[in-house]
């Protein structure tokens, strides 16, 4: 069955993800795993479907939070499309000149974007953060398409090229129906849709559906060495996703006010205690200003952080926490929901159906 043939918006099952930001070290493995697998063709140079940015920061695309989109009072809002400079990346380098050009030290290796020194990139403001030394602070935020329950992109598409898959809720685009109108890009408040200038279509994270359908977890989740990304069906009441999102309610969507009802959730970040002017530690506070976290995750974030602190206190006192044990994920497989097959066990073929014999098993 075609992933896009079923254009119905009737609710089916929803695959969701949870990222525990208290485990994220900003290593970019998810971003690189995605880049290597999905966006290596001409026209996709600037496409990083999954990015990891330092917060507070301007992010990628630069200042994306100010560009608009999503729903206001239940009505679709079209924001603006980021410029290629704001997206950044897709650089070229002058290796030939440096190594084989005969110029000695007159040239050095440097990135070029459209012939100029780049002004932004997928992770340009890495580790800069905010605050004032020694109480400066930052954390890392992995972002990809939220595969929203109310996808503004789907509604905005004038060519009916986009849909939500009934079997897993992944938001997909029929690229043959896409006319490059880019309304989806304007409508997406997360600015996670990219325009392919070579093929004249928009593209975004496909939720690794070609993997999901064979029981393999998305590349970003499966290659996260921090073991912080969970994937699974939101309605699986025994799974960690459901428990973290609905039962314990410690995983929150990013910018819930955008109104699209994301299906990617975040366990918000704790942070070390700040220092007072005399350098003593103020154990009553955390470094990241609560108001900043509220601006990202909504007002529920305070209760979540209190809950996490209580659980940590409890285990330090010798107690046991089912919530923290879930986040520990003693077995890596527990992060993967039903998608626990090793990728080398499947051999992708034209039909996508048969198993290949591979040397690595």
């Amino acid at each position, binding site marked *: 069955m075609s992933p896009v043939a079923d254009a119905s918006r009737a609710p089916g099952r929803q695959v969701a993800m949870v990222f525990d930001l208290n485990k994220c070290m900003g290593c970019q493995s998810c971003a690189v795993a995605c880049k290597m697998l999905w966006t290596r063709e*001409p026209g996709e140079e600037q496409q990083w479907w999954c990015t990891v940015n330092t917060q507070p920061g301007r992010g990628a695309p630069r200042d994306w939070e100010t560009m608009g989109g999503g729903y206001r009072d239940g009505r679709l809002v079209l924001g603006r499309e980021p410029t290629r400079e704001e997206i950044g990346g897709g650089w070229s380098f002058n290796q030939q000149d440096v190594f084989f050009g005969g*110029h000695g030290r007159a040239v050095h*290796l440097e990135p070029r974007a459209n012939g100029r020194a780049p002004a932004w990139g997928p992770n340009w403001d890495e580790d*800069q953060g905010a605050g004032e030394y020694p109480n400066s602070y930052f*954390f890392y935020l992995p972002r990809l398409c939220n595969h929203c329950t109310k996808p503004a992109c789907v509604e905005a598409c004038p060519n009916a090229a986009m849909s939500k898959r009934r079997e897993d809720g992944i938001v997909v685009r029929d690229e043959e129906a896409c006319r490059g109108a880019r309304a989806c890009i304007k409508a997406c408040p997360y600015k996670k849709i990219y325009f392919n200038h070579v093929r004249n279509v928009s593209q975004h994270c496909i939720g690794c559906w*070609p993997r999901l359908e064979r029981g393999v977890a998305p590349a970003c989740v499966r290659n996260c060495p921090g073991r912080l990304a969970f994937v699974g069906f939101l309605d699986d009441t025994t799974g960690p996703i459901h428990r973290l999102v609905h039962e314990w309610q410690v995983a929150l969507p990013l910018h819930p006010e955008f109104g699209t009802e994301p299906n990617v959730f975040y366990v918000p970040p704790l942070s*070390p205690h700040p220092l007072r002017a005399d350098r003593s530690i103020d154990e009553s506070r955390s470094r990241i200003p609560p108001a900043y976290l509220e601006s990202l995750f909504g007002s529920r974030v305070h209760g979540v952080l209190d809950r996490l602190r209580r659980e940590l206190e409890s*285990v330090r006192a010798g107690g046991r926490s089912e919530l923290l044990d879930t986040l520990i994920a003693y077995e890596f497989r527990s992060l993967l929901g039903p998608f626990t097959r090793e990728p080398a066990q499947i051999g992708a073929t034209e039909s996508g159906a048969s198993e290949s014999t591979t040397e690595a098993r």
Partner: protein
Amino acid sequence: MTAANDARTTEDRYRQRQEFDRATFGTHCVNCFPNDCPVYVFAKDGKVVFEEAAAVLGTIEPGVPDMNPMICQKGLAWSRQMDSPDRILHPLRRAGERGEGRWERISWDEALAETADAILDAIAEIGPEAVVLEATPEIAATIPAARFMAALGGTVLDVDATINDFWAGQQAVFGKFTFASSIDDFFHSDVLLIWHSNPAYTMIPAFHYMVEARYRGATVALISPDVSPSHSHVDYHVPVRHGTDGALALAFCQVVLAEGLADLRFASEQTDLSLLVRTDTGEYLRESQLRADGRADRFYQWHPEKGLVPADPASLRLDFEPLLAGSLDVRLAAGGHVVVEPLLARVRRELDAHYTPELAARVCEAHPDTIRMLARKVARGRTHIILGAGVAKYFHGDLMTRAMLLLLGLTGNWGKKGTGVGGWCSSLFDGHGLALAKTKAGRAGAREIYDGFRAMVGGLRAQDPTLTSELGDRALWRLVGPARGMMPPAFFWYWHAGFKERWNRPEWNDPAMTRSFDEYWKEALESGAWNQSASPPPDRPPRVLLEIGGNTLRRTRGGQGVLLERLWPQLSKIVAMDYRMSETALHADIVLPATQHHEKVALNMPTPWTMLLTMSDAAVPPAGEARGEWEVLAELCKKLAERAKARGVEDYSDRLGAAFRLDDLWSRFTLDGVFADDESAVAEMVADAVEVGNLPAGTTLETFRQQGYTRYAKWGFLALATAQASPFPEGETHAPLRDHVELGHPYPTLTRRAQFLIDHPWFREGGEDLPAHKEAPPMGGDHPFLLSGGHARWSVHAMNTTNPVLLETHRGKPFLLINDRDAAARGIRDDAPVRVWNDVGEFVVPARTSPAQRPGALTVYNGFEGFMFPGGRGHNEVEPGLVKWLHLVGNYGHLSYTPMEWQPVPFDRCIPVDVAPIQEES
């Protein structure tokens, strides 16, 4: 057109992108942390299309998270180096000036003939020592290269000094540093002190254990001057002034003792704190001082009833509680009396006098309350210090380490799960050792080496019955190690590479030195301690430099400037073999294309961090004319014999009189073909390690190809491996040093105890006989900022610095991290170029401003190549590359050279510099 663009439907397009026709297990044969990530390499039509973590590892210890998935962003993009424009595809000969970047393509035969002729010229003019190889942690290259050099008689520079990864502080205390916990053992900790490390960058596949330990109840604290990228997951961040960590550690110790929190039973047994020391000289009381026929390596404890009793050299077990306070009058053999006291009494006095939290706070800037709070937690919980190699890169890093270890020794925090501190061990695989030592092919050849080893250790233990198995292995390593051909590069740098002048600048050195560096140098050489290893001597200057996987112009502290100016002109031929254009390859005469990891069969770095050995497989054919190291060196052997015959070159000998022939070089190097290609060489190593070493029975190349990895079956027989001194872990995490703690096995130190006193006269004169805080000397002059470094997130050393995918995960270029207010005060803008300079040199680099940087501090992360900086010179240009004079001591018990251990290593942290925007300059 690509296949994906041929797709008729969206569905086809994306299904096709994950297509592959071959999936093999792979890995990345380079030293990072923790190494040995089993990955899948997916290939299609003879090209690697992508790679992924192979999450195939099982649970080791029930209740401890598994190690899956072991991967990082570098491993995921490794294959992008294979077709990057800096890939070396053909043998090249320099066609312009060195470093100019003009090349002509030549044949392999020409390249090898030219290399062989240069080697023969060097041997004829100087001797085989004039052929120099810089050893490297590129393990797939370094084993064949070292075997080749041993067959030739050339000089191999010790890898732990060329990459600055020898940790003198551990060696001073434990007599060894090649022990470490497995990464999953972090999970057992109650307290994790992230200290001198930035695991969010440098321990990516292991980082989760720290967070998971926190979720289990551990307290995590980060001690670092900057608000480092590891700060956001900790409970406490304690910012300290650069280089004052020793003062902080000693204040922790003061609190532990003053508040009665010390584990004195542990300290008495495991450490020298219960040994008696003289109050007049501060030295240990020795048997030789009490009896004319007494030994200088026998020491005393204080029995509450019996008084003075000899400390048992064979066991740490105590059936009494030695007195740890007070003093005792002792009659000396030479006449007269001396007052002695337990070392702990002296340590306690020093701590109370100089390192109370209030006094230390003035030095390190941590608040006294914070010091007390953390000291109590360390004393009450299983504590592991996540210590990085960064500490070894401070001038007084050894002192800092000794202070940290004193804290662990006082609180019973090693030799138990969840405790301790790690070192660097790359020698866990017997197959590597055998591949270097074997003189006959096959299992019989391995058996011969192994039996010889065992017989020699048996002989040593028969001579000295106090030697445990570990001490026997180590005694043999000390005996034969220095003759194995690795040389501490300090001598090379000093005599041949222009470092003599720098090391002799008194104003850059420690003010406690009473003489010039040269006088200490002379005295150290005259002591005879370095006789075997001070090579190549001044009368044997280098002529040929082989870089096989290494990159001396990028990595050498002291900078490429001094090397290009002083070393390069002496070299008749520089030959670089690599798969990519490195800084050194760019400045070479001959460049040879090597296979990349996914094009060859090789084994990864063997370490206790994971207890895994992984294999990289030839997923695809080599690009261009690239060839594997074993094959190329075997061909070079043939070419040497051929050219020697043509030129009538006779046999030759090295400076110590060892004789070499060239006509049989190929058969000596390859053992008649076994070590002539990757697959055969690796199969030999695996089979040997099954036969006499530490791989499980039944392991073959095929089992690696089926499983992607193997777990070791035992420690193996190399001293650097048996330094773990713990039961081999079956179904549990690995914590080293358990044999010392659980069985009372002595340590390989002078006193057979974890040793905090080094009573060598130089150490006493320098105020370093005990752990102490000393300020970093102004290495490079008097300037307002301190420049430091650290491993990068985006590369493993230089490897992947030019990977086009990874370059987009940062700004695609090096940068100087500067505090935002410092930047504003100097008119420095984010991403604008600045000039950084001091009395050593200068470089230009774009700034990155951040409030996370400590005011007054600057950071350039390690790994960027010179050619990535405007002007072609990087941050190494302002590093004087100083070594510490005390590390020239080579004749004090465990402070003596063995390969990969005790030796002088240059420093690169806390370099005084100044910085200004470029616009100001022009």
